[in-house]
């Protein structure tokens, strides 16, 4: 009896979480002239067809993906290097450093967005540029992705035996080679998880992008700008695609983590 109650409760929680997305996905297949979000009038793929004909949406999608790939790559490199540095600090500076790192995550996005915009406008003016754009967007995205990368790499570094690196050097391995041959493989799962997280965070960011985009348009901004007229069901179709991509990435993260844990258990 108690078990059934628990199951129903779990089911309700998941229903509450996923019902809106489910509705969105279902209505992306709705065949309707009036772009309705409430009246079901048959199955069709027309919105998907229209989506892939729409040059503006695709251009926004291209910008979004480009920014996501570049900022994920950059923040992964920077974040990994930072995590190694933080890990080898003494206790007090390490704590201070971690607090500084965590701050951007708890800071409201809108504050980060506005302050970055002010900074970029100032910097662009200083160097005689005319407009914010791709560059400022990538810089902003690296900024807010960094803490997540650091946070996912650090635990791996802590788990690693600190003597491994020294042992490699004792055996005659130069420092750089020791890092790539010994340290990096050990922390790889954390690095990959951090990168995937940075990528997904960057794809769906709206608030910070809105302020720092200048004359470049990302997908979330494009969708938002449709709200004066009706939001076209193309967006349902696109959201479905995006949801599927993010979902796939999350599953990859989880499977990887599960595998890593199993491997560790076997080692132990």
């Amino acid at each position, binding site marked *: 009896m108690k078990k059934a109650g628990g199951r129903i409760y779990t089911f309700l929680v998941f229903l509450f979480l996923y019902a809106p997305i489910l509705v969105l996905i279902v209505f992306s297949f709705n065949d309707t002239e*009036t772009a309705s979000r409430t009246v079901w009038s048959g199955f069709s793929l027309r919105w998907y067809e229209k989506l892939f004909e729409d040059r503006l949406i695709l251009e926004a999608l291209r910008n979004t993906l480009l920014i996501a790939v570049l900022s994920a790559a950059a923040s992964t490199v920077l974040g990994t290097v930072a995590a190694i540095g933080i890990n080898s600090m003494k206790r007090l500076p390490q704590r201070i450093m971690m607090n500084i790192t965590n701050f951007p995550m708890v800071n409201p996005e809108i504050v980060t967005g506005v302050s970055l*915009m002010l900074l970029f406008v100032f910097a662009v003016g200083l160097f005689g540029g*005319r407009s914010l754009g791709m560059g*400022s967007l990538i810089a902003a995205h690296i900024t807010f992705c960094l803490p997540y990368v650091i946070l996912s790499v650090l635990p791996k570094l802590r788990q690693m035996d600190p003597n491994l690196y020294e042992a490699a050097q004792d055996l005659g391995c130069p420092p750089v080679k020791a890092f790539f041959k010994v340290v990096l493989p050990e922390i790889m799962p954390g690095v990959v998880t951090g990168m995937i997280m940075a990528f997904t965070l960057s794809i769906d960011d709206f608030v910070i992008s809105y302020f720092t985009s200048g*004359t470049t348009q990302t997908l979330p901004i494009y969708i938002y*700008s449709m709200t*004066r*007229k*009706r939001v076209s069901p193309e967006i349902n179709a696109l959201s479905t695609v995006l949801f599927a991509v993010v979902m796939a990435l999350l599953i990859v993260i989880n499977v990887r983590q599960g595998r890593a844990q199993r491997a560790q258990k076997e080692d132990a």
Partner: protein
Amino acid sequence: MKKFLLFALCLCLLLGAGVTASAEEKATINVYNWGEYIANGTDGSMDINAEFTRRTGIEVNYTTFDSNESLYSKLAGGGADYDVIVPSEYMVSKLLSEGRLAPLDFENIPNFQYIDPQFKNPTYDPEGLYSVPYTWGIVGIFYNTDYVEEVTSWEALWDDRYAGKILMFDNPRDAFAIAQFRLGMDLNTQDPKDWEEAAELLKQQKPLVQAYVMDQIFDKMESGEAWMGPYYSGDAAILVDNSDNIAFAVPEEGTNYFVDALCIPATSQHKREAEAYINFLCDPEIAGANMDYVGYSTPETAAKEYLSPEMAESPLHYPSEETVEKAQAFVNLPQDISSQVDKLWAEVKMGGPGESAVLIAIILGFLMVYIAIIVYKRRKRKREME
């Protein structure tokens, strides 16, 4: 000799053309328009931007915004460099008064001649130097003929027979305009008392209103959840076209008409190319193809030829001259009046003491439940201790 001269002349012309073409090829203009406000090549429409690039070699970086206010904050915040923007009438007058617009060189926009005379020198741009109208439309009432009698006046939105089935604009200027028409006021009145009076009327209407909405009106009207609501003619034409029981009426008190106009910001570095873009959009053939997709009305009679006949003859898109004559346009309000309007609007939407009483009741209810849970837990613990 003559032949040689002719040849030289031809060569010069060719070279000249070649040089200008290659110079233009490098230029990219930044266009900032409303979302979903240009034909983009889907559903067999013309891809306007691609066509422009094909004809002139000028690249278009096309981006979109959702409201006049976002457009304004982008322009005022700096960090964005636009060459063509499409503000609505009151935003044109605001940008104009702040010196943010560049005067247009109409020699580069010969197609301006096709714009109908009633759209030239409008109230929001009295000299007619800074803007070229892109689209226009009027506000009217959409209603469900199954439930609502024929609508002739804005009063219908205050009719308590339809309580709970009425929708209303979710932005202050449009909502106040409706109350102002009922009171017979000027839409751009600068008398604070007039605005208070209009707000009073809106507060009276509030208990009857189902929701303050913008684009949700499509769903609510179509599904029959709501029976009537005011909206922009061009946007909602699709509603009337697709449902037999939805009709559109322009109330007899008059209505407001809006214009979205093409302008060039004072900071533009590619003014000549921007003017070429505006000129291109004013080409009747292009304007017709564009509006056929967008669904708004074009200010060019010549462009109607290129529209589908149903659209060109629809009173929804092209209301009678009488209606247009009675219509008024918004002009930017001075700072103190516009902040008063925002305040009054917040009051209307938040409601009077009745609303806060409900809110307090809800909070008290939560508090009671919370206390009950604590008391229950304490007792349970006590019982367990025993």
